[in-house]
Each structure stands twice: as C-alpha cells, then as structure tokens.
C-alpha cells in the first residue's frame, strides 16, 4: 500500500486557541480512512488544512502535510483542490440544473465541448449511484432533489473533476437510512479508484465502512487502527469511553 497523505507534527491555531495539537498520521492510497470523535475535536479543521481551505484571518499553522510526498503548500491551491475533493456536511447544490452542477467543476478546468461534458456528467453520476434516478431530468433544478439525492449530487460534482482523494465531512448527517446506505455502498466502489477520508460522528458507520479509523479528541489524535482493534481492544481508555458511549 502506498502512502497518499502524510501529516507530520501538525499544529493549528485559531484566535488564541490551539485547535490541532501535534497531529501525526498516514493515509494510504485506496483506503477508506475514517476520522471519528466528538464535536470540536478539530476533525473538520484537519480536512480543511489538507486542501488549504483554512484561510481565516487570525489563524496559524505549524508542521507539514504531504500529498504523494509533496508539501501541499508547494502545490498550486486550485490544482490541489481538484486533486483533493471535498464534500460538506450539508448538501449544497448550486442554484442551477443538475447537469450544470456536475459540469461546474470540469467547466472551471476549461472543458467546453458539450459532448465531453455529457460524458463526464454521466460517469460521475453513475459513480455516485445517482444516474438512474436523474438521467431523464438533467435540466431540472438541482434544488428539487431530496436531501439524500442532493448529497449524492455533491459527490458526483466532486468526482467530475477527477480527484485522487475524496474528503467527506459527515456526509450522511441528516440523511435518511436509505440514502445513507446508498452512499455507503457507493463508497465501497469508490475506494477502488480514490482515497477516501471520511469524517463521521456515527461510530457504527465507521465500523461498517472504514479500513482505518482515527480517534480525535479536543484537537489531539488519540489512536489509530483498523476497526477490529479500535472497537474491541482499543489501546487508549478514552477511545473505549467514546466508542461505548460513555463520552461525547
């Protein structure tokens, strides 16, 4: 297994608070890497540090993040964000047609040919397990889709720029079980081509889909390991507390 993302001794400060404390972790290619932990543990901040979307004033970072061995600060930020796609917790379709939503990313890259775009749109919607449901109404407004469909649309949209890594920040929060199941099914197929980082509040979900799990608490990385270890014989007591619901 090759290393896709390497995070070395990463600290992040916002205002006067330290949000991330000395994070060291390795994410391998083509795996589903799940980050779990209670709210405000820094999970989202970590994701946004990887694709350099943490540009608040009053913030400061130390340490390094590597993508395929290269420091992310040395990669052009737009190219970086196409290589490392992000899906937010709340589905955010652009107020436009379904087609234009998915085609938005490729158009940014300069792809204009309608035939080419149609190709990409279909491929992405299929990979997100949404094609069958929307193939006849691509020119409908994306705002008319249900929550679960919108989220899958956002996944398709991210896939359309052909990333290498997909970062998902609690993608199934607020979705019904069927949509959640569909997304989890999509993830199993997606990991063949992509590396997936999945932040989730739902420990059962992590147990279902993840290859590696990292437990965060108050900005610190407490423990990483495969699900069998984390869920049955965690090394740290705090991990055990969180998993069994005694905390968080």
């Amino acid at each position, binding site marked *: 297994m090759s290393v896709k993302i390497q995070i070395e001794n990463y600290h992040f400060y916002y205002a006067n608070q330290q949000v991330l404390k000395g994070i060291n972790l390795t994410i391998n290619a083509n795996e589903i890497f799940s980050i779990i932990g209670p709210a405000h543990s820094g999970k989202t901040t970590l994701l946004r540090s990887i*694709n350099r*979307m943490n540009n608040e*004033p009053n913030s400061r970072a130390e340490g390094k993040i590597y993508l395929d061995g290269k420091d992310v600060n040395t990669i052009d930020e*737009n*190219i970086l*964000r*196409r290589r490392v*796609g*992000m899906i*937010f917790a*709340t589905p*955010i379709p*652009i*107020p*436009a*047609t379904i087609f*234009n939503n998915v*085609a*938005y*990313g490729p*158009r*940014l*890259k300069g792809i204009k040919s309608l035939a080419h775009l149609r190709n990409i749109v279909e491929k992405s919607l299929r990979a997100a397990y949404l094609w069958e449901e929307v193939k006849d109404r691509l*020119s*409908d*407004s*994306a*705002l*008319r889709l249900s929550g679960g469909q919108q989220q899958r649309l*956002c996944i398709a*949209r*991210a896939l359309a*720029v052909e990333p290498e890594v997909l970062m998902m920040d609690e993608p199934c929060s607020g979705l019904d079980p069927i949509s959640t199941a569909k997304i989890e099914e999509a993830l199993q197929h997606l990991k063949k081509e992509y590396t997936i980082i999945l932040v989730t509040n739902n420990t059962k979900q992590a147990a279902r889909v993840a290859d590696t799990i990292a437990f965060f608490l108050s900005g610190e990385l407490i423990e990483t390991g495969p699900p069998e270890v984390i869920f049955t014989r965690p090394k740290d007591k705090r991990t055990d507390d969180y998993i069994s619901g005694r905390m968080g």
Partner: protein
Amino acid sequence: MANQSFRIPPILNQRIAQVLLWLATIITLLVLFFIIIFILIRGLRVINFDFLFSLPLHMGKAGGIVSPIIGTIYLTALAIILATPLGVGSAIYLTEYTKENIFTKIIRFGADCLAGIPSIIFGLFGFILFVIKLRMGWSILSGGLTLAFMILPTIIRTSEEAIKAVPTAYREVSTALGGSKWQTVSRVVIPVALPGILTGVILSIGRCIAETACVIFTAGSSLRIPTSIFDSSRTLAVHFYILTREGISMERAYGTAVILILAIILVNFLAYWIMYRFIRRMGGYVG
C-alpha cells in the same frame, strides 16, 4: 394600566382601532390613487402618435414632446452607462476582494450618506463643477455625469447588499472544486446576486427619469433634439415643470405627466418582473 373606574374593554378597543385604521388607510390610498387618476384622465386625451413623435412648438404651447423624450433617454442612458460598471465593479471589489476593515466601513458610510443627499445638492455640484468650471456648459454630458454621480452610491450599496446575500457556502463549493477567485465570483456569486443588482440599477433608472432639480441646472432646457452630448437638452420632468411654471399649456403638461408616470410604471414593473422570474427560475443558469 392603573385601576380605573372606566376601562374600555379590549374588544371595543379593537373595533375602534380597526375603524380608525381603515379610515386612515382608505384616505391615504384614495389620495394617492386620486393623484394618478387625476393626471391620467386629463392627460390621456392629449396622447397620440403626433404628440409622441413631433417637436414642441412655441415653447411647448403646441406640438409634441419628442425632444424631451429623447433627452430623457440620452441622459438616463449616459448616467447608467457610466455609473453601473463603476458601481457594480466597486461593490464586487469591496465585498469579494477586501476584508472588512475600517476603510470599507468608511466607504460604506460615505456611500450611504450620499445616497440620501437631496438631488438639488447634486445639481449645485454639477452646475459649478461641470457646467462652469470644466466648461462643459449646459449639456447632456454635464447632466449625465451629474446623474451618474447621483446614482453611483445607490448602485454601490444595492449591489453590495445583493452580493453579500449570496451564501458563503456557494463560494466554498466553487473553491473546493478548484475555482479561482474570479471564477467563483463570475460563475457563482454574480449570477446569484444578479437579480438584486439589476433591481438596484433599474430603480436608479426610475430615479433618473423622475429627476428635475438636478437636471435642470446641468443639462439646461433646450427644446431641440440633441445631436451630440455637448448639446443642451430637456427631460420630460423638466419640460413638465417649465410648462406648469410658466403656464404655457396645461393640456400638454398633463400629457407629459402621463408619459412620465407610464415610464415609471414600466420601470417598476420591470424590476418586479426580474425579481419574480429569477426567483422562480433558479435552475436555469449557465455555469
């Protein structure tokens, strides 16, 4: 309320209040609509093809109003052409490319103040600066520049509000897909803010059409059809004012007023239509 021997029961209170409110409202609405109808009744009979397309004769005592119509169009067009790119561009720069700091606050305060300054002060300003000091004389250029200065603060503010109203989430989505700053602004922010921006521009058009104090001192009151922007020209509002002040022709004054009111109605209708259509049509923008 302290203990009183006589208290109006709440239900009676409500009845009284309702009666008074209905009375006040009906009076208000009657008066407002009376004004429109009064003008329309007396003015509509003057309107015909000739009136709209022929020149005023004898200082406006006879003939039509084609030169004031053209004057209005030229002046408004010049003002909008100058003020819109300037206003919208500044709004974009101020909201998207700068962080909120003391400077942006001062600029916003300045723009807000200017947006409320009476047009006569702009008339004074334009008269001294453009007509006299810069020797442009009474001309469409002087008038258009002055009107542009007058509507610029409003366009900046309404555009700024419209752009700020675009949810941050949309910008994040575009950035996360690798969009550059300008791509995000031009492909997501502006299209979503467009109805608000356009409404501000259209209402400024309405303001230009209705303006008198500012225009009469900068564009003059020539009755000829202007052939260049250095020519003086009269707008419909100015024409109406002069006709009534000098008592030249009541008939034609009413006719002019009707056209003025119709123009304002058109402008307002356009603004509503745009807002309505965009809100309904959220799905169809081209990325």
